[in-house]
């Protein structure tokens, strides 16, 4: 019979440990903060674009990159430093490690994106059509993409740069097929179909609903897809990491 108090405590301490150690690591700062800012500025500066129209996409990209940047680093780093074995020998189970890693990523995503959002709201007078939906978008989006980060960290390696490369390989194409640089409403045919395959599309659409009220999908579909993505990513991460424990790697 699992002790729920011990389980919750293990998640909280793992999250705290991750926040203390990994938030200021180079790869997290580069891929989580600088990269989305540079990407947006590259597309925005020098073009006559409507900031209000593109802001939900920018916000979605920011949350996507920040939330998914911490997870991929943790497990490979700890395997390289050989602290992973110590962690597993403490009163934790695999689920606590996965959820602790996920929460560290999600909190990082929410914190940084909230600061950016607040600054932009003050500077550019960004409208908010539905604050509740915006909050839900922040939470589900950050958890979904932190789960992606945790899944990306699951393959066996003790070399963090391998995982950062893999995560860039998966994350970069997603920003081009998620309605960030071309609004979803302007896409048709196969392009629209392609965007529907990316989970980031649903977060961007949710932000459109919350900020401008011009979403393509109903918000409940966006939320449902994001919840499904969380379950899928966490489930896959658990299966892979459990297999690693059986194999002793």
């Amino acid at each position, binding site marked *: 019979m699992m002790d729920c*108090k011990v389980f919750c*405590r293990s998640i909280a301490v793992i999250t705290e440990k991750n926040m203390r150690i990994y938030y200021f690591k180079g790869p997290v700062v580069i891929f989580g903060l600088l990269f989305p800012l540079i990407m947006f500025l590259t597309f925005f500066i020098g073009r006559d674009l409507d900031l209000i129209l593109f802001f939900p996409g920018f916000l979605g990209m920011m949350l996507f990159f920040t939330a998914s940047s911490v997870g991929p680093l943790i497990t490979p780093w700890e395997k390289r430093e050989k602290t992973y074995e110590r962690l597993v*020998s403490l009163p934790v*189970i695999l689920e606590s490690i996965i959820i602790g890693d996920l929460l560290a990523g999600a909190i990082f995503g929410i914190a940084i994106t909230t600061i950016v959002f607040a600054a932009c709201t003050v500077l550019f007078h960004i409208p908010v059509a539905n604050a509740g939906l915006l909050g839900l978008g922040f939470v589900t989006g950050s958890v979904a993409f932190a789960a992606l980060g945790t899944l990306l960290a699951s393959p066996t390696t003790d070399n963090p740069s391998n995982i950062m490369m893999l995560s860039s390989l998966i994350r970069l194409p997603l920003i081009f097929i998620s309605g960030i640089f071309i609004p979803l409403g302007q896409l048709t045919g196969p392009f629209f179909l392609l965007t529907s395959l990316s989970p980031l599309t649903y977060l961007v659409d949710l932000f459109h609903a919350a900020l401008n009220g011009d979403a393509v999908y109903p918000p409940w579909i966006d939320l449902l897809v994001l919840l499904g993505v969380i379950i899928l990513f966490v489930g896959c991460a658990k299966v892979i990491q459990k297999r690693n424990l059986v194999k*002793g790697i």
Partner: protein
Amino acid sequence: MVPAVTFEYRKTSMDAIVAKNLRKSFGPVTAVDNVSITIPEGGIFGFLGPNGAGKTTAIRMITGVLIPDAGTVKVLGTDVQKDPLTAKLKMGVIPENGTVYSDLTAEQNILITAKFYGMDRASREERAGEILDRLGLTERKNAYVRTFSKGMRQRISIACAIVHSPRVLILDEPTTGLDVHSRRLVIDTVRHMNGMGSTILLTTHNIEEANALCSMISIINKGHIVATGSPEKLKKTFDTSRYVEISFDQQVAPALFSDPGITRAEHWGDKWRVYTDDPDRAVKYLATVADRDHLKIVSIATSNPTLEEAFVRLTEA
């Protein structure tokens, strides 16, 4: 000054660790095959074996780090696979290479480990202070572990493992690669924890260390336990290999050692090594013949069977 330690257990009649029929294979290689051990509460139990014998794999299964292919492990009555959280609360583990978080300070490493065991803030800080003092790291408590030597890192690793005063302390090669000072601190801490009531399970390939520390030893080789017993019992397994080492002031012929109690004699540097089942009789005989042949004995020493000898014979087999 070493502070007073504020914990002590009442020993129970329960076995501290019961591992039954543990087996683990990695592809075609069987690292541990049908290993069973029972460790009563309160002792120091050693897993002794050469490199690659399966010690670390066995320890990793006992601590819940590795899932066994077959077999069960119970720590103080709790099944490690079925209820890992409860089982791990009772253990303190020092993994091989004594790893700790390099990006945290010495004190932060201990405090964050204490949080996993649900210790309140005051207890965490008090206990961290006590342990840092005991391990001679108080002055470096705010230094990042990445600036520490291997010996200091190992001491922090031990500090993390004992912060919650575990009833079972498991150490994987705790003194490998350490300098004399750090090694002594580690051994003293192991003895101290045992004195306070913790059951100790340690792996080592250092025979002297096992002989000095352990009340019970299992010798493991090629994934199998080949012998289990107290160090003295294991030594006596090969009791026939006792000998007397003697040197004279001049060369002597092998015929000198023709007493029926002497099984054989070998030239050993400037000495003779005389093998016997009865060292007392051999010494008396050698003194008699030295007197008879006007030989001066330069040195004489009897040698008891060593654990090293038992280890070599068992692992060779």
